[in-house]
């Protein structure tokens, strides 16, 4: 069975990564169009000459990291609290935030910010983007952690209490470590969702807070320029390298 599973996994990974391979190949295409016309590296050079790209990439990183930290923290605590005793209102609103089409969330958050900022004399910026990202990623975190909590027995915490720990200590030293893989999975999900978000971000971004998806979408919609292929290929390489490095560090 294990062998079949391995083969199957390989096939699925191919499916997931096939577009990436295409992107990488065409990032070396000398022509702008998806017809191969020769090898060229000038799209990669173009990336480094584009100031906008650098700034937007940096913005994306800031937003994604900040939003992930906030939503994972709030979401984990929330999932745990709901596990202790549910709350229909809170669960309901978390679900609803998932159902809301992105454009609706974007427009409603835009309206909220525009209205409230009128009194506060604020403008849109990275802060509004981060707030918006947390808004839509909390539900993902809660659902992933809650699913993991389903398989967790409260008996372990009870045992800790019997041994004299406080409730907080029981959570901190018994449950939390056990939840860690789930938290990592949830954080990964939140990070990914945030890093790639376009619709909501484009609505609530300020003049100075362009993110990478916004720049890429703009480029892509007017005719997929190979520059974005090059960017995508670079991103994959960079993150792939980061993953490998972190694995080596973990193992040592």
């Amino acid at each position, binding site marked *: 069975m294990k062998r079949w599973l*391995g083969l*199957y996994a390989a096939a699925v990974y191919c499916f*997931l990564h*096939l*577009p*990436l391979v*295409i992107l990488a190949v065409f990032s070396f295409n000398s022509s702008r169009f998806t017809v191969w016309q020769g090898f060229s590296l000038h799209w990669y050079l173009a990336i480094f000459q584009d100031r906008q790209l650098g700034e937007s990439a940096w913005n994306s990183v800031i937003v994604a990291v900040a939003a992930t930290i906030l939503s994972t923290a*709030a*979401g984990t*605590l*929330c999932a*745990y*609290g*709901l596990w*202790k005793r*549910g709350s229909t209102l*809170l669960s*309901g*609103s*978390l*679900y*609803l*935030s*998932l*159902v809301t*089409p992105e454009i*609706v969330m974007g*427009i*409603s*958050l835009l*309206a909220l910010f525009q209205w409230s900022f009128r009194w506060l004399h604020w403008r849109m910026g990275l802060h509004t983007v981060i707030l918006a990202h947390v*808004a839509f990623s*909390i539900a*993902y975190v*809660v*659902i*992933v952690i*809650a699913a*993991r909590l389903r398989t967790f027995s409260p008996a372990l915490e009870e045992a800790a209490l019997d041994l004299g720990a406080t*409730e907080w200590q029981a959570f901190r030293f018994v449950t939390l470590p056990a939840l860690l893989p*789930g938290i990592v*999975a*949830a954080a*990964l999900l939140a990070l*990914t969702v945030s*890093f*790639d978000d*376009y619709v909501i971000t484009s609505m609530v971004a300020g003049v100075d807070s362009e993110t990478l998806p916004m720049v*890429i*979408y703009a480029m*892509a*919609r007017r005719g*997929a320029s190979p520059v974005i292929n090059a*960017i*995508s290929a670079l991103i*994959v390489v960079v*993150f792939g390298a980061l*993953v490998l490095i972190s*694995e080596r560090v*973990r193992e040592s």
Partner: protein
Amino acid sequence: MKTTSGWERLRAWFLLPAWIWMAVLFAAPFAIVVIYSLLTRGAYGGLGLPWTAENYQRLLDPLYLGIVLRSFAMAAAATAICLLLGFPLALFISRAGSHKNIYLQLVILPFWTSFLVRLYAWLFLLRDTGLINTALQHLGLIHDPLPLLYNDGAVLLGLVYGYLPFMVLPVYATLERLDPALVEAAADLGSKPWPTLLHVILPLSAPGVRAGSILVFIPALGAYLTPDLLGGGRTVLIGNLVQNQFTTARDWPFGASISVGLMALVGVLVLLMLRSEREGLV
């Protein structure tokens, strides 16, 4: 679940951030959307008085109900396929021992690149002069190019492709927690791999499966980029309809009422699902 006052206090504190967040960043915007849905379209788009329930009456039109039905069918199909494809993968990763993290990252890695850009890559793959058709023609397997693009099948492919990690991650989170001793016990009792899967692993992974299904089905309902790009704009799903109202048609009140209607519908479905389970999902 028995709670004592100590737990109650902890719980109250833990839920506080989520409460604040949902109140400010969800309830308030949601209220705004509801208000929008009761207004009228302004002369050049946007909003204006009078207050009216007309936007909700428009929803009952068979044209829009048909769109809702089609969207539900598409989302359900995407969820089912994601489950079929994603469950074995999650199982594989959960059993991968020390390389678990790498395999997990490999699932996520493609999603670090722009979704739109990957969709364009699929366009290139599926087009008449695209890679797949060209390859098949070169191998002499087909004569004329296959119509792989701009139909429901292509949209389904795009949806599955886009939401697979949302199924894999929660299922993995549950499977990872699975006690291998249970599987061993089943084997000791003479169970072969397949029955073990069906009767032991699958039921124990139910919470993850439910979570994953929700995380795929619900966003798939509101998807608009995938049907737009891979469907060639030939069909209208709810996501396209709402997108259209807020952009080209500039009928924000109607777009808002569609969204409220959609959220209400899914809310009811989820409520029913929660009631039928002994324990809730969240």
